[in-house]
Every structure is written in structure tokens, then in C-alpha cells.
């Protein structure tokens, strides 16, 4: 049985590990929500890596349609070929190209499929995938072919909650909300990325970071990826740890909005 225990590069909370394992055992998609920068996308990579499986990423954009994930029937190519007398124009199968979901279904061994940022797509998008994710199969009318998953892929779906997802869709998922890591867990996460970091610097950085996050005036809260960038900047700049809390150097790495910077400067000590 597959069991995910976190990986060398990914520190997961116990709850997250449980949710991931529950989803895998039940064969249901795992829906991950959470603040931006809490490592939603990274999770899929970590799971794939620790299980030793191939990861297929389906990046969702505002124009993505459910059909794109299943297959694309390249009519234009076929039209071209027919007019210029190409070979095998009668073979429709040649012009049917599988999308990411189709790819995951037809893979010879179990894969991890990441449907990234599902909330970016049209409101109806998740509904269009209900059947396919439930039964793990779809039909291609052009070739009268039914694609059925050889091995049920581990499906991981991330959402930034920009749009509400339909109830029918949610009912089929295992849900987990990644909470923002507390200081302890954050220290662990940082350690994973920078094993040789000076302990004094880390303590100071964490203190400054969590104080900034608590300021009600700061609207766009810095997240994990920002603290990692900030640490890199501080190490690279050779900043003395004693100065970190007092002066907050390289503030631009943490705060991305003008108003937030001004607000912070006003209230910081």
C-alpha cells in the first residue's frame, strides 16, 4: 500500500499526511486549499517523489476547458493532410491527442496527477470533470473508443479559493486546508531548505517575520516562499543577525505592495 510520510524536501504537518493517505486509500481526489505560498503545489511533487511515481501536472488557466484535459481532436491538421494528400487521413486516431488526464489514465503504471489551481478556470469547469474523476474513464466519440484508467492515478487538486467550487464536486473529494505553519514548523521547513543556516539569524528572522504577519495594517501577508527568499537575500547580503528585527533589511522581498511597506514603516517600533 502507498503511504506518504513527507519527504526530504517537504515538511508536512501530521494532519496533511493523514489527509493525503486517506485520499490515496479511498482512491478519491485530494483537494488542497490554503493561503498562497503554503506549498500546495509542492505537496504533489513531494508525494510523487516519495512514492517513486511519475508526476503529471495539469496547469489550469482561465481559458482551460475540461475537454482539453481529456483529448483534443486536431481537425485543422486533418484538413491540411486531406488537402495535400498526406498519408493515413482516414485514421482519425492519428488526430486525437490525449490531454493530461488522458495521459494519466493511459499510463502503464500508477502516476500522480496534479490539477493545479482549479479555481482559475471557468465556474463550470469542475462540474465537467465529475464523471471522469469518479469513474476514471471517458469516451472519445470520434474514434468510438473508451479510455479507462489502467491504474487509478493519485489525483491532487489545489485551489486558491478564488471561486467557490460546486457542491457536487466537493462531495467527491477529500478536503484539506493547509494552515499557515507556526514558528516551530516554519523553523523545520527553513531547515530543510537551508540546512547550514546560522541559528541566530533564523531566530531573528522568524521573530521579525511573524511580527510582520500579525500587523493588521499589512494586507498582503508574506508567506513561506517569501521567508525563504528573504533568508536567501539576508545570507547573500551578509546581514548581521542583530540588525534583522530592528531594521528589517530587504523589506521588498517580504512585502510586495507599496501600501503595506508604508504601513509597516509607520508602525515598526
Amino acid at each position, binding site marked *: 500500500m502507498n503511504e506518504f510520510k513527507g519527504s526530504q524536501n517537504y515538511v508536512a504537518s501530521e494532519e496533511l499526511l493523514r489527509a493525503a493517505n*486517506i485520499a490515496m486509500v479511498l482512491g*478519491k481526489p485530494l483537494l488542497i486549499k490554503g493561503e498562497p505560498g503554503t506549498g500546495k503545489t509542492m505537496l504533489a511533487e513531494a508525494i510523487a517523489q516519495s512514492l517513486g511515481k511519475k508526476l503529471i501536472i495539469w496547469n489550469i488557466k482561465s481559458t482551460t476547458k475540461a475537454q482539453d484535459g481529456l483529448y483534443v481532436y486536431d481537425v485543422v491538421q486533418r*484538413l491540411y493532410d486531406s488537402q495535400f494528400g498526406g498519408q493515413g487521413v482516414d485514421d482519425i486516431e492519428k488526430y486525437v491527442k490525449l490531454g493530461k488526464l488522458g495521459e494519466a489514465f493511459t499510463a502503464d503504471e500508477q502516476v500522480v496527477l496534479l490539477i493545479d489551481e482549479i479555481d482559475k478556470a471557468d465556474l463550470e469547469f469542475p462540474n465537467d470533470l465529475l464523471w471522469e474523476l469518479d469513474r476514471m474513464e471517458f469516451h472519445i466519440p470520434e474514434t468510438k473508443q473508451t479510455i479507462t484508467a489502467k491504474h487509478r492515478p493519485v489525483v491532487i487538486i489545489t485551489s486558491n479559493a478564488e471561486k467557490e467550487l460546486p457542491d457536487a464536486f466537493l462531495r467527491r473529494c477529500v478536503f484539506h486546508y493547509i494552515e499557515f505553519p507556526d514558528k516551530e514548523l516554519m523553523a523545520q521547513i527553513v531547515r530543510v531548505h537551508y540546512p547550514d543556516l546560522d541559528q541566530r539569524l533564523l531566530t531573528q528572522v522568524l521573530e521579525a517575520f511573524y511580527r510582520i504577519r500579525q500587523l493588521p495594517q499589512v494586507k498582503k501577508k508574506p508567506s513561506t516562499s517569501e521567508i525563504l527568499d528573504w533568508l536567501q537575500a539576508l545570507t547573500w547580503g551578509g546581514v548581521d543577525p542583530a540588525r534583522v528585527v530592528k531594521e528589517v533589511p530587504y523589506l521588498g522581498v517580504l512585502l510586495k505592495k507599496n501600501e503595506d511597506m508604508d504601513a509597516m514603516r509607520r508602525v515598526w517600533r
Partner: protein
Amino acid sequence: MFEDFLYLLRRYGLKVSLTEWMTLMEALDKGLHNSSFTGFYYLCRCLLVKSEADFDRFDRAFLEYFKNVPFQQEVSQELLDWLNRPDTLLDHANWDEEQALKNLGLSEEEIERMLRERMAEQNEEHNGGSYWVGTHGMSTFGNSGLSPTGIRVGGESKYKRAFRVAGERRFRDFRGDNTLDTRQFQVALRKLRQFSGLVDLPPTEFDVDSTIQDTADNAGVLKVRYKRPRENTVKVLLLMDSGGSMDYYAQMCSALFQAVSKSGHFKDLKVFYFHNCVYSWLYNTPRQSYGDGVMTQWVLDNLPSDWKVIFVGDAQMAPYELSGGYYRTNAKDTPQSGLDWLNCFRERYPHVIWLNPSPRPDWGGYWSQTYDTISDIFPMFPLTVEGLEEGMKKLLSR
């Protein structure tokens, strides 16, 4: 096994379906809770709850059902809420029947005159009395007072009774750099565009996909297809109540305003402000300075009836502000009261909704009179994401 828990969750407002419940049973059967109570808790939560907003509700239900099972838990949100409930002052000690009747008998003009006199006389703070400008008392002016009529001076209108807000006319500017999260509102507003793609326009836009499809189906003989343009034809007139009792909802209104103005996908958008009810003038800014606005009649004359009109207001005012001729102009043939003006809008525009940030006041209350009158004229929706979605549907219905 413990079906009661399912029903308890549903009573707590969690929409747990049978599918999810059966999944939980399957998971328990497979031993996914690791035979531990904490494991069981997480298992239930990740299978039955689908939004972090519902986590707290789930926790409460879980605690109630399994309260006899020892369970380590931080202070629950419920308890925090109890502690947080603001204390209501024991005002009734100051109630004076005789004074109340006397105050009811006064006309607005008299009260205004009296206020001017007192302001000239008064030079210190007064609370709980019946004569001076102060708080918690029986005088006809001041703040948080008990008099059935009167003028509020400064502060937030605790009892919403002051029929006019004197002194504090600094209305919050909705255009301020407020960075509230308006995305949910924007998503709701986007509905107004999706449907507008279906309007009946001549097919003028070249349709690449259908052309290729049909040409291919036609064995390569070209077949040109056109489609209806997807341009948004929705034009929106947004009329917002500002100031007075609307100050409570300033943040919410601001979020709505930003969502509407940011979404930028309407063919045309006009925003005007009014106070309590629409009268002969509409203002360009929430401050409603005199002269900075347009005649309401001009709007009615110049914006055709295909405009969609959205009113935003709490629809709570003194009844005479709605039906009385208090703010009428001298011209005889124009609408006389706020109610007349609202009826003009209803007759002119087939698609009007009223969004209300405030719930209907309790039954029989003074403020529910105008609320009910206005909701009879226009379909009224709460100013929430769901209410907004409902409203958008109403605006698009034919």
C-alpha cells in the same frame, strides 16, 4: 453506527450528504482512523467538511456529540463569542414616560430650533439627562438616547432613532484605498457578463472553430460560419445610500463599489449617491455636497430603459422621509416624495434590484415600515455574495 452524528452535523448547518457519509463508513472499515480518537477526528473532518470556513462549526458539533469522550481542545470559538458579546447599557433606568410623550409631540422644526438654542448655551458634557445635548438620556438630541424622536449629534446611531444626523455629515468615501477582499463580489458580478453573451445580436463575428469544423465535415469544401459577438451589453446604474445608518455597512458597500468599478466589463457604468431615499438630486460623491450631482429627472430622461439599476441601501428611515413631502421641490408637476421617485424608477426600468446590507428589523419595529414598503416596490436581496448572485439572476431575467 452513530447516525445521530450525521443529523447533528446537518443541524449545525453542514451540508453532509449520504455519499460523504458512506465514504466515511468505508474509510472506517478500512481502518483509516488508525484506531485513535484524534485520527477519527481528522478522518471525519477531511471527509465531511469541504471548506475551512466550516471547520469551527464542525468542531462544535463534534464536541457536542462526543463531549463525554476526553478530548484535548483549545478554547472554542463559541466560548470566545460569548466573552466577546458587547454589553448593553442599562439605559432603561433613565426612561421617562412624560418626557417621551412630550418629545413625540414636537415637530422637526421645533426640535431643530431647540438644538440650535442648546448648542449656543451648552458648554459641558451631559449624560443621562433630558435637557442638554448628551448621551443615554431623554433629551431630544445627543447620542444613544432614549427619546422617541430627536437629532443625533456625532457618534454611531446606537438606537437608530434620531431622524436626522446633525453634526456628522462626513460620509465615508467609498473610493478610499480600501483593500478589502472584493474577489467574491467580483465573481458574483461576473455572472452579469456570462449571460449577456447570449443577447440577440446579429451574427457578425467570424467563428474560426465552427468554420473549420463545418468545412471538415463538408469534406473540405469551405463553409464560413459567423457567431454572435460575445461583447457585454450590460449597462449598470448603481445608486448607493450613504451616511447615517449606512455608516455601519460602509466597508461592505465599499467592497461592492470596488468590485463593480474594478470589474470593468460593463458596457457602461454610472454611480450616484443618495441619502436614505432618492429625491430630486443624485450626488457624484458619497459626501453629497450640494451642487455636485445631477437631477434625478435627468437620469430618468437620459438613461434608456435597458439600463440595469442596482440600489444599495438599508431602506430604513423615518416614514416621513419616504412618503412625506419633506424634501420636495417647489415645482408642482415633479414627484413629491421619495416614494414617488422610487416609483418613477420602477416604471422606467424593468430591471431594478435593491441590495440591502441590513437584515429586516424585528417585527413591528419602527424601522421595518419603510423596509417593507421599499421591498414591495423592488425585489430586495441581502448584500451578501449569495444575495448578489440572486440579484444578478433577477437582473438578467426577461
